[in-house]
């Protein structure tokens, strides 16, 4: 028996569809307000948790395994195993700015982002001094109102950027959903977790 933490929302539903295709679920993600359910056939327990909390549940052992975005892993750096790329929820971590933006290298670049650590790491890798402004949402507003020069954020289709007069000026890295495991749980439940990884890989490769 293993406990699986899935992110609430679209990504979690896509992930559960993968588990179902791999033979570990019944495909029903319409669970109403229930936060946990059990797949009787496999004996797996599933929990729906806030996407940014999945890694916490897994790191602390409340869930043995889970599905989490690479953006969360890069930002929070939990002490977990990242066993496979599920190749769903694909998007890009990008730098975006107003169409008329021109970098002024004589001063630190003001970067608005929810992903402070990732932004710092990216700009450190390209050798640019920055000041990060931590925002929790509607990041696109920051350059429009002059709060920041650029934003560092996830871009899926680019429609929100376009609607707000912003454009991508650099791409940091690619994001997708990852299958993670608690390090101690992996030691004691390795056979079942490894089998699950293999079957999920089989399903994602066939897609």
């Amino acid at each position, binding site marked *: 028996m293993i406990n699986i933490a899935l992110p609430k929302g679209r990504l979690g539903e896509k992930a559960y569809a993968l588990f179902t295709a791999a033979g570990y679920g019944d495909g029903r993600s319409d669970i109403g307000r229930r936060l946990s359910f059990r797949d009787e056939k496999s004996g797996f327990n599933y929990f729906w948790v806030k996407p940014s909390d999945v890694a916490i549940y897994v790191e602390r052992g409340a869930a043995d395994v889970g599905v989490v975005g690479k953006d969360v892993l890069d930002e929070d750096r939990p002490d977990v195993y990242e066993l496979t790329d599920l190749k769903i929820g694909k998007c890009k971590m990008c730098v975006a700015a107003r169409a008329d933006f021109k970098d002024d290298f004589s001063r630190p670049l003001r970067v608005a982002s929810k992903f402070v650590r990732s932004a710092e790491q990216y700009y450190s890798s390209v050798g640019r001094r920055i000041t990060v402004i931590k925002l929790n949402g509607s990041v696109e507003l920051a350059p429009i109102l002059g709060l920041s020069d650029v934003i560092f954020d996830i871009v899926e289709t680019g429609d929100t950027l376009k609607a707000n007069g912003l454009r991508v000026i650099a791409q940091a890295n690619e994001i997708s959903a990852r299958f993670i495991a608690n390090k*101690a749980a992996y030691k004691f439940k390795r056979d079942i977790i490894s089998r699950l990884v293999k079957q999920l890989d089989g399903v994602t490769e066939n897609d």
Partner: protein
Amino acid sequence: MKINGIRTDSLKSEERAALALKALYRSYGYGEYKLSGFEDYSLYSDNSSFLDGKGVLSFGVNGRLLALRPDVTLSVVKNVNAIGATDKLFYDERVYRKAAGSGEFSELRQIGVEVIGNIDGVTETEVCELALKTLDCVSDGYILDVSHAGIIEKLLNGMGLTGGARAAATACLQNKNAHDFLRVAHDCRDSIFADEFVKLITLPVQPEAAIAALSKNAATVGIQSELDELSRIAATDPKHMEIDFSIGGDADYYSGVVFKGFTRGVPYATLSGGRYDKLLKKFGKSSAAVGFALYLGELCDCFSDAPDRPDAVVVYDRTTAEQAVKKAAELRARGLNVLLSGEKRDYGDGVKVYGTEGEYGD
């Protein structure tokens, strides 16, 4: 069972484990090392990566910046002077650091073994055996992972990775993340080293299979002697030992085998150690060292002891106090845990209560 007149069955699991472990280490001829006083904060700030992000609590006294000890090994290494002789030590100390899986500072009990001086294969195997017996003492289900810092370092050097790419490759190894390593591997100078590094991530954990997989190109990539060392250590107890390079070990401190112990029911490693000659070198000492620490406080926090409950309660009031005190003493002399109380109330099932009606007979 009695130790100096104390009933060990009345002790908490943490206390029982500590007694058993100290007896174990003494049975191997190890002597207890007691630390005293505080350390200068600089001891920890200069060696922050050895602390693995566990944090330091510091305070100032008379112009000196001191720290509550977050770790014991650094103090032992600083204070022990093993010149021409080998010290085999164990300790049982309180440390003050962020507990595993928590951002909060805690006072935690840590027990460990350190051998400093001339370290040969026999000593290394003995320490590994003690690590296994330590885990066996505190858990029914346990695994001791073993890795080799020298193998990881040689493959990283062979790939020619530096800076961010080297850190990314190390992170991929520690997270068993082979899919992202393949992107890092594009920048590698020599693909055979990258191929061997991927093996470290995806290796079977069974010692025999892991050694066999790494043996194929060991001579080519120059890791044969390290692999022989790993193979010898992993043979100590193949049933409870696994080869797993994800446990890492900071290359600035560890020079050879690295251990990490996991016990069933605990979501993080409860034992950690290895061969740390490089740490001694940082302190200007030429001797070698090997040891491990058991995070007893964190381990015991994951399990609950039965709540303390006396075997008997002797109740008294103003007129019966003298009689009650005598009765309590008499019962304690019979080996019972006795609570003397001025409150007449329900003390729970199975607790014998004396004196509620002013009577103290059996």
